[in-house]
């Protein structure tokens, strides 16, 4: 009997656990360790954040799903990995904390899919927990944002003018796409509620140009032109009367303004009444110990607490970055029975051009690895683990972000007749300038358009992926 332990029950971890369970025999065990009791379909959190959904519509209780599927569920926060066991017993195990008590879970294969730690602490005054800004990273955060938005709408109905600031709260943030969806949905909702003329809406971002999204931007084939995504993004904002601040690192969030530094070294401030600013991410801070209980964390994890896998982490200048630097199997180079999936793996370098201000402040988006790539990585890792349990000597499946594409639908207003969404495809996610010298991507497969059809697709995906997450009949046929 083998036991596969998955740390985390987000998009990547849940996918990995579900596939591993369905492929392994009943003599083998799959255990999921996750601090939260629910699965969250994160892409729909933005609709909670504007008050169109409630948290229960984007979450599912995990315990009954796992009980039905035959997956053991431990609700706890993973703390330590002991890949060599300890002096008493050489079997590897992880420790986790649940309600102050330590739980010890042995494993034969470990999939680290812990996702990000939300580092609101990196910027003074950032975040809903004691700070002055809101977030949509978690369903609870998004519900709080919706309540604050409702208050703002009431004030505007009484005739007040209000200032909205949306974007990212640090120079190294990622997930600009989620904040982008939030700002255009916010604008759409203010129009729907008849108060748009009393709202001043501003986007603040660490992107060098609009539409970078941490992927170095895209060149989209549309209307007889190959057009940079910055043009589309600027058009979308200008059409909706949204102002923007780019190349910015938020230094401090005060109760009614943010202070920021820009790439040219200048400092600025922007007042707000309502701010939704995403935090930077890091790994969750897992510690690793050898058999003698010596701390070997730095052998398995990068300083940003994301896990080293089969990537080329050699520091090199942007000009020397290659698609081949990106991991393919997500196996730890230190321990062949440990893998990382989704946000938990350490990218070899960003995708966007790295930039610093004259003061040395890094102002460049980190690479996104959420949604479709996270799920595909989870599935590929589960495939390899199952094959290795079956006798394979090495991982058998790959899911390099430099070899896979992504289909993304960014909501720009939720209404079945008047809503719109930007539908985009990119191939590959990480540009490969050796294969596609001009733009780094296949221009026939990198595409984008905005329209009502995109909103229908977004709604379809919401229901389809929640159905899949429930592991209902036929779930395996729904692609990642």
């Amino acid at each position, binding site marked *: 009997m083998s036991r596969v332990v998955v740390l985390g029950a987000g998009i990547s971890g849940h996918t990995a656990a579900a596939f591993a369970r369905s492929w392994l025999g009943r003599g083998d065990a799959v255990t999921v360790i996750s601090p939260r009791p629910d699965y969250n379909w994160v892409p729909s959190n933005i609709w909670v954040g504007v008050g169109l959904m409630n948290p229960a519509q984007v979450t599912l209780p995990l315990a009954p799903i796992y009980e039905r599927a035959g997956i053991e569920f431990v609700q706890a926060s993973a703390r330590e990995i002991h890949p060599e066991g300890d002096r008493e017993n050489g079997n590897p195990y992880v420790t986790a904390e649940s309600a102050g008590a330590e739980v010890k879970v042995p494993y034969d294969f470990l999939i680290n899919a812990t996702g990000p730690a939300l580092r609101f602490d990196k910027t003074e005054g950032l975040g809903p927990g004691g700070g002055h800004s809101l977030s949509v990273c978690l369903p609870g955060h998004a519900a709080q944002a919706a309540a604050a938005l409702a208050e703002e709408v009431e004030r505007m109905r009484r005739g007040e003018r209000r200032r909205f600031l949306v974007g990212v709260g640090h120079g190294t943030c990622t997930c600009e796409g989620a904040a982008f969806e939030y700002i255009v949905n916010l604008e759409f909702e203010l129009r729907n509620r008849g108060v748009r003329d009393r709202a001043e809406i501003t986007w603040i971002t660490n992107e060098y140009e609009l539409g970078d999204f941490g992927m170095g931007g895209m060149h989209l084939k549309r209307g007889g032109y190959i057009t940079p995504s910055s043009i589309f993004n*600027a058009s979308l904002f200008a059409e909706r009367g949204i*102002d*923007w601040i780019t190349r910015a690192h938020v230094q401090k969030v005060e109760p009614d303004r943010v202070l920021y530094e820009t790439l040219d070294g200048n400092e600025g401030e922007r007042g707000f009444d309502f701010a939704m600013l995403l935090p930077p991410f890091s790994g969750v801070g897992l510690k690793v110990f050898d058999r003698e209980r010596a701390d070997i964390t730095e052998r398995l994890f990068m300083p940003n607490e994301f896990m080293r896998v089969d990537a080329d982490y050699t520091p090199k200048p942007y000009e020397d970055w290659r698609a081949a630097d990106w991991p393919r199997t997500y196996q730890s180079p230190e321990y062949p029975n440990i893998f990382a999936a989704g946000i938990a793996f350490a990218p070899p370098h960003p995708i966007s051009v790295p930039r610093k201000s004259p003061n040395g402040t890094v102002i460049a988006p980190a690479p996104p690895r959420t949604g*479709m790539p996270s799920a595909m990585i989870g599935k590929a890792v589960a495939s390899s683990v199952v094959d290795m349990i079956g006798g394979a000597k090495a991982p058998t*499946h790959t899911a390099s972000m430099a070899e896979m*594409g992504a289909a993304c639908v960014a909501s720009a207003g939720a209404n079945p*007749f008047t809503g719109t969404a930007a*539908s985009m495809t990119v191939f590959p996610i990480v540009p490969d300038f050796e294969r596609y010298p001009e733009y780094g991507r296949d221009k026939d497969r990198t595409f984008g358009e905005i*329209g009502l059809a995109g909103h229908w697709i977004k709604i379809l995906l919401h229901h389809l992926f929640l159905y899949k997450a429930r592991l209902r009949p036929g779930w395996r046929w729904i692609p*990642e």
Partner: protein
Amino acid sequence: MDSEHASYATKPTRFTIFMRTFLPWQVWRFAVINLKMIEIIRRSHEGDSPK
């Protein structure tokens, strides 16, 4: 909107805005976009052959 840089941005015509929510056209685009996305998903799964 009084932002200076917004005046340099491309803006859609009324026809383009109309087409974004014109039902017959959007039903067609729904089919086209889905096919494009299925192609991306199919190609992306090439390293992940079915078990």
